[in-house]
């Protein structure tokens, strides 16, 4: 209930405004069939999805696009994506994308994978796909945790991060070091474009979109393998209140998996 003594006036938000105005932002991203999904409160993955769909729509590639989808929480988002999709196995989306692109070279082919999917189970697939210079775009949603199983350590979990199977925090001596997959892929000659973004705030979301645009443009120019890593919040898997997700992402994961472009037009960008 609104407090009648509250000096600040609450503006109604249940109906469009009256008067001269224009709608500058739809609630649903383009190329969606519905808005409802079962991902947790505060999840960063739908933020990334919005930018992916928006980028495809802006390039007018909706009817020449194929997504190959890994297995993770984001798999549930396929229900709302109005894009032709192939559901792959955990880790195997880059291979499936390879076969699809070879047979349909005119299409924009992208993968959607999590860190468990790409960097744990499917590390070989993404590395070889990059090394071959396969003309596809691999998109990693990296939250440093197996979200779908309820918060377990992945290959990108940062040191000190608590997970259900590294309960005192990831320890280098016991669990080894995180893999900085973007940095690894950038060093392969077949990689033309490589960048790491983060959706911890609106600026980060806008940057994510720019990197996606550049990756897709690189693919359509036939430059070779392109890669966009997107750091996403997983408050459930981090055991944090949802409101603390963005800062944890920025300050803990973001401190190790640093945001920025790593490679452009086949040329490494030195930080």
């Amino acid at each position, binding site marked *: 209930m609104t407090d009648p003594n509250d000096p600040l006036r609450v503006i109604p938000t249940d109906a469009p405004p009256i008067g001269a105005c224009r709608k500058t932002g739809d609630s649903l991203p*383009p*190329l969606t*069939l*519905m808005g*409802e*999904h*079962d991902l947790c409160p505060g999840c960063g993955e739908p933020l990334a999805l919005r930018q992916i769909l928006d980028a*495809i*729509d802006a390039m007018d*590639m*909706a*009817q*020449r*696009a*194929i997504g*190959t989808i890994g297995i993770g929480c984001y798999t*549930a988002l*396929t*229900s*709302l*994506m*109005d*894009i*032709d*999709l*192939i*559901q*792959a*196995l955990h880790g*195997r989306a*880059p*291979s*499936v*994308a*390879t*076969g*699809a*692109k*070879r*047979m*349909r070279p005119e*299409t*924009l*082919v992208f993968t959607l994978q999590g860190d468990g999917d790409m960097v744990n189970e499917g590390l*070989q*697939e993404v590395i*070889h796909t990059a090394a*071959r210079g396969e003309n596809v775009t691999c998109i990693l949603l990296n939250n440093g945790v197996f979200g779908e199983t309820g918060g377990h350590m992945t290959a990108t979990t940062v040191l000190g991060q608590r997970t259900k199977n590294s309960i005192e925090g990831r320890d280098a001596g016991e669990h080894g070091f995180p893999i900085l997959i973007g940095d690894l892929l950038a060093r392969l000659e077949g990689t033309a474009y490589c960048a790491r973004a983060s959706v911890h705030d609106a600026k980060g979301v806008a940057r994510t979109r720019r990197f996606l645009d550049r990756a897709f443009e690189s693919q359509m120019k036939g430059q070779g393998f392109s890669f966009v890593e997107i750091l996403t919040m997983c408050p459930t898997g981090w055991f944090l209140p949802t409101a603390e997700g963005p800062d944890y992402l920025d300050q803990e994961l973001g401190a190790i998996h640093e945001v920025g472009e790593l490679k452009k037009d086949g040329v490494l960008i030195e930080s």
Partner: protein
Amino acid sequence: MPHERRLMEGSEAIAEAAIAAGCRFFSGYPMTPFTEVLECFAKRLPEEGGACINAESEIEAIGQAWGAAATGARAATGSTGQGLSLMQESMSEITRAEIPIVIFNMARGQGDYFQATRGGGHGDYRHIVLSPQSVGEAVDLTQLAFHLADKWRHPVVIYGDYLIAHTAEAVGIEAIDYGPLPEKEWAVDGSLGGTGRSRNVNPIGMEKGSKGIDPNGFWQKLADKEDAILDAEQRYEAVDTEDADLLIVAFGTLARFARAAMRDLRAEGLKVGLFRPISLWPFPKEALAKAAEGCKRVAVLEQNAGQMIEDVQLSLLGAVPVVPIGGISTDPAGFGIGALLDSDLIAGRARDAHAGRPVPRGVVS
């Protein structure tokens, strides 16, 4: 253009037959005795405007074929037993996602019968398995495999072996017309984004525009389809079974040795017949039961410790005594070139079985 018959190794003949059938994508990882199939595709597919990828593992090979086939292209992969083991996870998912691919299994002998016919992966599925006895038949079955894969939206495995892959026989390769097929409206060609009718080829029945999935309904539909395949696609060859006292059951190249043995036994006056399942799944149960009617015994000849014999027993349901006359038999490298590949040895065992004498078991060397 009709192709002349020429001497061709099985590997080359299989690749040429696949290309004649419209296969434009292949991916594989070298492994004896499958390697030359990959070599032939690598040479020929680029010439035909297709693509062949030397994959980094069998897991990637089948993943790539999966993606190619999901777009509607005719695509294939292959390997031998160990590589097929690595592919099983994908074979299960591909079957349940109803993606038509062809898998060339140049097996090391016949010890992988269960792997091929039971589906070595997780979940509730079977895929079609065709087993040629000769290079000429491999040419036909390869083309049939692509047809059946598209007809049923179902993977098809060609179960060959070292002899199929490496024996040179005189064959001619012409495209075989197996009849019309439905349009691949399901194929993910990328064209339906933003139309509200976009596709999602997946193995658990996820529907676009709806949060819920119905795995029970989805998998029951697949089970119903597999029942239909079971009824429609049984293939076999029955030779001299009408008057037979002893029926030998054998598949693949081993059946050719059995046929030679049978000829000798017939010349001796023994009434021996041969039943050769061509489709290992679906196994031709009713036809075998019919062929075995009136027989005193059924002798199962297979190059393993006893796998197909279970299908034979399930077909006959105890109506006729079943005797194993094969056994474990390979070469020191384990490629399946064993002492059992000998028509005299087989004839001797069949003679024992015919007379009701005990047949030696164990290693055949």
